[in-house]
């Protein structure tokens, strides 16, 4: 396969003379009536004329037919069992679900949200546990869990499935995938911020790593109309679900990757050196290859002293200027649609949804524009009232100073601690959420007691 089959010397010769070329073209385009006469006169070299193909004899017709039939047969018999969790691209979501799958614990509270939630949980837990946390492996919220136990009694096991950049569409997929894999939480705490609804750098819900990975697990037929922005993305989805090979392209790619790695490793030995090539070297060498992929020890958070945390400040204004640059009404509407779907799904699954407006600095609010921010806040209030959802606006400038953040939106360890303390406090003040958490704590305690007593009972 190194050159086009038609890039041959013969073709070149044919084109050597424009006149001859034109005559061949003209003759062929006339339907070949004069072909024999022409060839006899002009080009003795040409091979004898083949019988003309009819539609049913055309190679293309048969190739397309065989391709479709092959796909149909594969879909029907489903001969290969692929593991939907085994995925080529290992981003935040993959590690979260990988951890959840391996975990023997039952989780009764799930945390969802973007990097604002990730940062708050990781910072506070690193200090609370006084150890460095590897965020590809650590998906708990220990400080919050213990705080809930203190306040409501019972047992709490919080699973943190918030990931950087998570939008409501991703949160919807995450929650559905949790339930699909028998990890139904009793309560979901979902922290939102304006960026999650209007990020200019995102064109559609289907663009994220979360979405691409979780659609292997979750059926999205019911929300397809709002996922695919253009007819082409919708067509791509249609092709993917219609053709077996396309649906399992990522699985085949993974198998091919594993196979080729085996072959190459056998045939081409890796020379022993003092400095083996690491994932970090790869990131430096190929920054755009699998962007967003993380590996163990790629993102670490360690304990930090209060003085140091309050001193540290990163100016991420340029990033947010870009994100807020062209607020897209379509994205905004479609993300609210997914928020609505989360609410519906929670109701159906009898999961208590607690919506939290995450704290951000007034500096960031000014980047967005106060008018837009207030509209966002108003829309959240209306949404929560319409759907009868518990909604807490935690973004109160009087409660948080710039020293609680390590940039314009992310809480540091001490800001995070303040946030979870206040959250638990607010939750306990409302009868509805207090009851939901208390019941959840009791349920899990009872569940664990039963689980622990089982071996004795069998004996």
């Amino acid at each position, binding site marked *: *396969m*190194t*050159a*086009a*089959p*038609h*890039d*041959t*010397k*013969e073709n*070149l010769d044919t*084109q050597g003379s*424009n006149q001859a*070329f*034109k005559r061949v*073209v*003209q003759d*062929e*385009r*006339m*339907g070949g009536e004069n072909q024999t006469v022409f060839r006899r006169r002009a080009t003795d070299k040409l*091979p004898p004329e*083949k019988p*003309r*193909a009819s*539609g049913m*004899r*055309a*190679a*293309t017709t*048969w*190739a397309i037919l065989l*391709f479709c039939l*092959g796909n149909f047969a594969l879909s029907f018999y489903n001969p290969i069992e692929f593991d939907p969790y085994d995925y080529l691209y290992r981003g935040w979501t993959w590690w979260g679900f990988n951890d959840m799958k391996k975990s023997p614990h039952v989780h009764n509270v799930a945390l969802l949200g973007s990097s604002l939630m990730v940062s708050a949980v990781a910072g506070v837990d690193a200090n609370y546990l006084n150890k460095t946390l590897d965020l590809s492996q650590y998906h708990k919220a220990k400080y919050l869990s213990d705080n809930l136990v203190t306040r409501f009694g019972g047992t709490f096991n919080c699973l943190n499935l918030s990931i950087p950049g998570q939008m409501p569409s991703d949160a919807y997929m995450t929650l559905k995938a949790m339930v699909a894999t028998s990890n139904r939480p009793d309560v979901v705490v979902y922290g939102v911020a304006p960026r999650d609804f209007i990020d200019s750098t995102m064109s559609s819900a289907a663009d994220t790593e979360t979405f*691409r990975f979780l659609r292997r697990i979750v059926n999205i037929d019911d929300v397809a109309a709002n996922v695919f922005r253009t007819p*082409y993305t919708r*067509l*791509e989805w249609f092709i993917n679900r219609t*053709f077996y*090979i396309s649906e399992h*392209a990522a699985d*085949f*790619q993974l198998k*091919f990757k594993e196979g*080729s*790695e085996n072959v*190459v490793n056998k*045939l*081409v*030995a*890796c*020379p022993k*050196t003092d400095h083996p*090539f690491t994932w970090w*070297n*790869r990131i*430096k*060498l*190929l920054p755009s*290859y699998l962007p967003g992929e993380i590996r163990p020890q790629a993102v670490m958070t360690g304990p930090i002293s209060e003085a140091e945390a309050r001193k540290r400040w990163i100016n991420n204004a340029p990033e947010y200027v870009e994100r807020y640059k062209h607020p897209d009404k379509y994205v905004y509407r479609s993300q609210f649609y997914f928020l609505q779907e989360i609410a519906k799904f929670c109701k159906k699954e009898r999961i208590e949804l607690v919506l939290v407006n995450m704290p951000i600095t007034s500096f960031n609010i000014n980047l967005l524009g106060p008018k837009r921010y207030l509209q966002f806040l108003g829309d959240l209030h209306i949404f929560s009232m319409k759907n009868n959802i518990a909604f807490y606006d935690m973004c109160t400038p009087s409660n948080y100073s710039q020293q609680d953040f390590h940039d314009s939106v992310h809480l540091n360890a001490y800001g995070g601690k303040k946030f979870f303390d206040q959250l638990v406090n607010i939750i306990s003040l409302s009868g509805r959420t207090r009851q939901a958490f208390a019941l959840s704590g009791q349920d899990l305690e009872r569940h664990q007691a039963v689980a622990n007593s089982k071996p004795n009972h069998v004996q």
Partner: protein
Amino acid sequence: MLFNSLQYLVFLPTVFLLFWLTPHRFRVPLLLVASYVFYMSWRPIYGLLIFGLTLANFLIVPFIEKATEQKRKKVILGFTVALNLIVLAIFKYAYFTMDAVKATLGVVGVDWKEPHLHIILPLGISFFVFEFIHYAIEVYRGKPVVKNFLDFALFPSFFPTQIAGPIKRYQDFVPQLHIPVKFKWEYVDEGMQLILMGLAKKVLIADNLALVVQAGFAHPEQFSSLDMWLITYAFAFQIFFDFAGYTDIARGSSLLFGYKVPINFNLPYIASNVSDFWRRWHISLSTWLRDYLFIPLGGSRGSKWLTNRNLFITMALGGLWHGAAFHYLAWGAYQGIVLILHREYEAVMQKIGIHEKLLKSKVYHWASVVFTFHVVCIGWVFFRADDMKICGAVLSKLFEAPTALLNFSASQLAILQIRDPIIFPALVLILPVLMVSTFVINWLNDKKFYQSPPWAVQVTVMVALMCLLTIFTPDSSPRFIYFQF
């Protein structure tokens, strides 16, 4: 609209169906509309550019034909060529010129603040401008003008060749539009096979090799001399498969409508000298440069010095045509120099009288093929490097090879240590296969295998390619290299 996109997968069959359902007299307007839709799907405003240039050339060039005096013909031709080149210069070379002026003024101590322009290079401008110039020169040389505006407008805008060629000749293309064509399944079979083969070259080979090339040319300091040779070979095959893949898709798409467009490649890496290489690489460009630059400059009719000068200017400008940057100019100049050296070498050998004997020797022939390939590969370093600094770094690595070979050990090869992505160590397996396959295909060509592959082979290859492309086509496939020109 990229050939390797879903949009094209919808666009092409739609136009194909409409074309064959439409009576002959409406087919040119249909293809013209489709071609403008194709072009304007990227930036609608640039549809005006191609239309404006088409209209200007259509209106001005007939005056060349009408002019009775040779001098007048020349003036109109000069005006037409200048008009096309000015448009190309504005869109393609404005930043480059300003940078060069700024650097020159900087040398004499003048700090010039260049104006900030917002010019985005229109896709395919280098290709359609060359087609317009070809048309004007051919009319000047006595060929007839195209009388029908729609026919003329379709010539530069024909969507399969619009963005990256092959650069067509109007005498070949326009007459095809007038012939009442009947649908033949052969068109579909040949066209589909070319399209699938082209996509496979791009997606399965070029895009994978691109990973290694990207790393090597971004961080040459991380690789040894022998690594850099392998990476340079990888680029030689990447650019070939990328561009040959594009050309196959373009030719296949044209064939679906029953139109033939010129070929662009003829196994360039089996060339036995650089002159032969240029007869096999980007044929539509090299013949354009020969006909409309080298020959008008005097070609090889003058003295040795003039011939060499013409060669050098032609190749240097050809290099600059590829991109407004010094490294492209350097690549062109390098090609010019090696072509001159080759001419001089041949002249010396003929003088000595051993040329004929040598040429007939198989050992000499294959040694020449290997030598030419390496000369071409050194040229590709100028082409691929982002700037002259990187170019210098890569070249200095390449020239350390003899020392590295003397102390060869596998631990010298950094690519063997990189196991993710696996394409790095796999390169030592893939490159020999690609090299050998070139010779195998040449042998198959000689045996005329491709003229009549058995029906079952055609179907099997097509199904296999459909499956492979479905699996390996990424969600967002990289653009073709020649799109930027």
